[in-house]
């Protein structure tokens, strides 16, 4: 019964979404306040309906209602509760419902907190946002209904893919979707502004927090996915430049660019047309990400079974939204006249360079990701683009970005003086290069990646510190320290996020340059030495889990005769899903991870054992967390909370003026 109600709520929400996409638009065009105001309750209604629908599906999973097709295909009574819940989005249908839930959640947020927006802009934003929701609801209802019943329900389900029964992946999709869909808000604002025909500082101030929120979620989502791949897949890699990974990375790069160009719109009313274009492209890439993951057009190591027909539907949605928005953009971009002028050495210019570098690096990733499809269609060759391509074509732009970041972040608005800005930075640059040289001398004869990463990482982190310190003005140390604690959170957020990028860059370079690996056959009780550690295979035991059984290797990790820790890599078998999985044994340290994988049992006794030394592994995800934290700090800045109250007292003159 609840399931039918959930299905019914979904259909109702679709009807409301259709109404919300038309009525406020007409209202905004004709200047009818009541038609425009209708958008708010409709957005709330949509959210409640989809929320109920999602809750109904979750209920079906929690109670193991095996009359539902997707519950049978993705759940089992013996599965732990948390994976019953995460199973809701561990499949295509449920994940699309989650996607729509987030679309309407963001729409409802714009309705609830958008009180200080000009009425026409708000009506149009909600209208556009609702059209996105409507398109995906139509997609769900037409091609992938999660509430599909079975005529003869089985006694038990087929279990969720064991690889997905993992805390890292339980929360990876929701965060990623919050990021993807958060960009839909920037898209809606961009399209609404194009229809409206005006972009001003207030628009920039509105778009920024949404983009920032989306970027934070994307950062966390990507980091979770990378972390999961690292410890769960058993190859010890953190990034494979795989199409599915790139699909989430391109929106991240563009969201980062958008974040920075929206600052220029907000503070200086320049780069308007570019910012609008970025907002459209960023969401376009999010849609494309969904399409790539579901269409099966590109071969991915992370691919699950898929259905090309659904991909075509999403491609259609993509074409309508991005094509429509770009057409509108072409017609209206001329009206986005810039107000502020700036010198060629200024914060604005630095942000332009930041945007060019981020956009071009996204372009490189895009070419590398789509080239196999292009070559197949037009050149008739089946090929794949591997990591060497990205290492060579993508990395230079990140190096350039990290090099100019500390300088650009400290340049003043409007007109700057490079010499004066560089004065406090020179010692830091020297220090960073010295560290790089030291690292290079110590590692002798290994790739230059490590020293370069160390130099850039330190340079970016020190630069972020110098930026904060420069904000405290002059005078006695005590006074500056006191002022440091009183700086706006946005300043702290900026410095934190920048430092996080430095840490991530350093970790990625160090991990790639200094990792070590080994493979050998080991008898129980035998030991070997690897990267300065003595590793002993104590025994291999049979272990019984809640819905799996496993061979667990017990390894002792010792250094200089002292036992450091005990590692237990496993080979698990999930009988219901009929699938084996590999659980790596990882000793996480501050500077390095020791990573063991149990391989095949050998015919003459013993086991194949693969070992990796992963330096700085934790720094990689630590850096991502620091970046996300910086974003959060910035998002919680006083300005966003106070500005909303102030603007309400004096409604802008734009409120009553319809688009020409």
């Amino acid at each position, binding site marked *: 019964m609840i399931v039918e109600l959930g299905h019914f709520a979904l259909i109702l929400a679709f009807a409301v979404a259709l109404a919300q996409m038309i009525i406020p638009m007409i209202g905004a065009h004709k200047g009818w306040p009541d038609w425009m105001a209708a958008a708010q309750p409709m957005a709330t209604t949509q959210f409640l309906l989809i929320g109920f629908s999602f809750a109904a599906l979750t209920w079906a999973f929690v109670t193991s209602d095996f009359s539902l097709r997707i519950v049978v*295909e993705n759940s089992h009574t013996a599965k732990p509760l948390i994976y019953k819940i995460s199973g809701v989005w*561990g*499949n*295509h*249908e449920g*994940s699309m419902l989650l996607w729509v839930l987030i679309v309407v959640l963001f729409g409802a947020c714009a309705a609830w907190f958008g009180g200080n927006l000009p009425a026409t802009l708000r009506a149009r934003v909600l209208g556009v946002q609702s059209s996105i929701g409507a398109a995906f609801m139509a997609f769900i209802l037409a091609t992938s209904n999660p509430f599909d019943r079975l005529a003869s329900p089985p006694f038990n389900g087929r279990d969720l*893919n064991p690889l997905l029964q993992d805390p890292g992946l339980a929360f990876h999709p929701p965060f990623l979707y919050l990021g993807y869909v958060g960009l839909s808000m920037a898209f809606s604002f961009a399209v609404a502004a194009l229809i409206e025909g005006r972009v001003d500082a207030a628009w920039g101030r509105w778009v920024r927090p949404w983009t920032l929120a989306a970027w934070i979620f994307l950062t966390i989502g990507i980091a979770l996915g990378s972390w999961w791949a690292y410890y769960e*897949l*058993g*190859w010890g890699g953190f990034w494979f430049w795989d199409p599915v990974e790139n699909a989430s990375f391109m929106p991240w790069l563009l969201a980062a660019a958008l974040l920075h160009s929206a600052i220029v719109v907000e503070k200086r009313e320049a780069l308007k047309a570019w910012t609008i274009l970025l907002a459209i492209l960023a969401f376009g890439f999010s849609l494309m990400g969904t399409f790539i*993951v*579901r269409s*099966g057009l590109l*071969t991915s*190591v992370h*691919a*699950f*079974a*898929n*259905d090309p027909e659904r991909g075509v539907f999403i491609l259609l949605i993509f074409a309508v939204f991005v094509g429509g928005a770009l057409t509108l953009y072409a017609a209206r971009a001329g009206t986005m006249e810039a107000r502020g*002028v700036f010198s060629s050495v200024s914060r604005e210019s630095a942000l332009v*360079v930041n945007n*060019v*570098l981020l956009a*071009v*690096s996204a*372009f*490189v990733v895009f*070419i*590398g990701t789509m*080239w196999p499809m292009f070559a197949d269609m037009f050149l008739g060759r*089946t*090929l*794949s*683009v*591997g990591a*060497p*391509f*990205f*290492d*060579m*074509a993508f990395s230079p*732009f990140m190096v350039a970005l990290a090099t100019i970041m500390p300088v650009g972040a400290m340049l003043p608005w409007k007109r700057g003086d490079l010499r004066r800005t560089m004065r406090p930075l020179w010692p830091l640059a020297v220090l960073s290069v010295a560290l790089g040289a030291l690292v290079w001398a110590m590692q002798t004869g290994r790739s230059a990646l490590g020293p370069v990463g160390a130099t850039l990482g330190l340079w970016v982190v020190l630069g972020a510190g110098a930026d904060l310190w420069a904000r405290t003005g002059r005078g006695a140390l005590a006074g500056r320290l006191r002022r440091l604690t009183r700086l706006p959170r946005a300043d702290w957020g900026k410095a934190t996020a920048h430092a996080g990028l430095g840490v991530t860059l350093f970790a990625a370079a160090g991990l790639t340059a200094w990792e070590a690996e080994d*493979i*050998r*056959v080991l008898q129980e009780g035998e030991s070997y030495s690897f990267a300065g550690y003595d590793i002993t295979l104590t025994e291999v035991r049979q272990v019984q889990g809640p819905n799996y059984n496993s061979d667990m290797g017990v390894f002792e990790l010792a250094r200089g005769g002292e036992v450091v820790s005990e590692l237990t890599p496993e080979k698990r078998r999930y009988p219901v*899903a009929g*699938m*084996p*999985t*590999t659980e790596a044994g990882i000793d996480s340290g501050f500077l390095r991870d020791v990573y063991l*994988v*149990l*391989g*095949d*049992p*050998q*015919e003459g006794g013993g086991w*194949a054992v*693969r070992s990796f030394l992963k330096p700085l592994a934790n720094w990689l995800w630590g850096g991502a967390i620091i970046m996300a934290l910086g974003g959060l700090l910035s998002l919680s800045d006083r300005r966003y909370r106070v500005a909303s109250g102030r603007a309400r007292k004096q409604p802008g003159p734009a409120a009553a003026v319809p688009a020409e």
Partner: protein
Amino acid sequence: MKGLKKKRRVQIILVAVAALALSTGLIGYAMRDGINFFRSPSQVVSAPPGEAEVFRIGGMVEPGSLQRGRGETIRFSVTDGNASVPVTFRGVLPDLFDENQSMVGTGRYVDGVFEASEILAKHDETYMPREVMEALQESGEWRGEGTPTAAGGS
């Protein structure tokens, strides 16, 4: 004001064009090393690529050919029904790797043996890489149901 704005716009366009040109150059240069062609076992046998070339091979793991558990090197043969190529791999195989399953590997072809440096894993039993599906269809070995699709969740 107007003149400065125009000058700035021209400068921005120049920077963007320079960045695009640089990236295009880098892309072209990187493609020489970064691209791995896909070859089916028949193609490898009829026109063996040079020993230096890194490429991808894909097909089905031939029944009875898989030797695992005899030292750290794993041996098997990959076939598309018409030809079969022996493969060696030093490492731990992906979880779903087995005889009569599809596989894709990256590596070099040295002295009639494909030395794989990487074996592609899949996360799901019903998934088959598109290249493998097409290679099997070409050799007439495809036994799927009509169209080369696999149903199921994401």
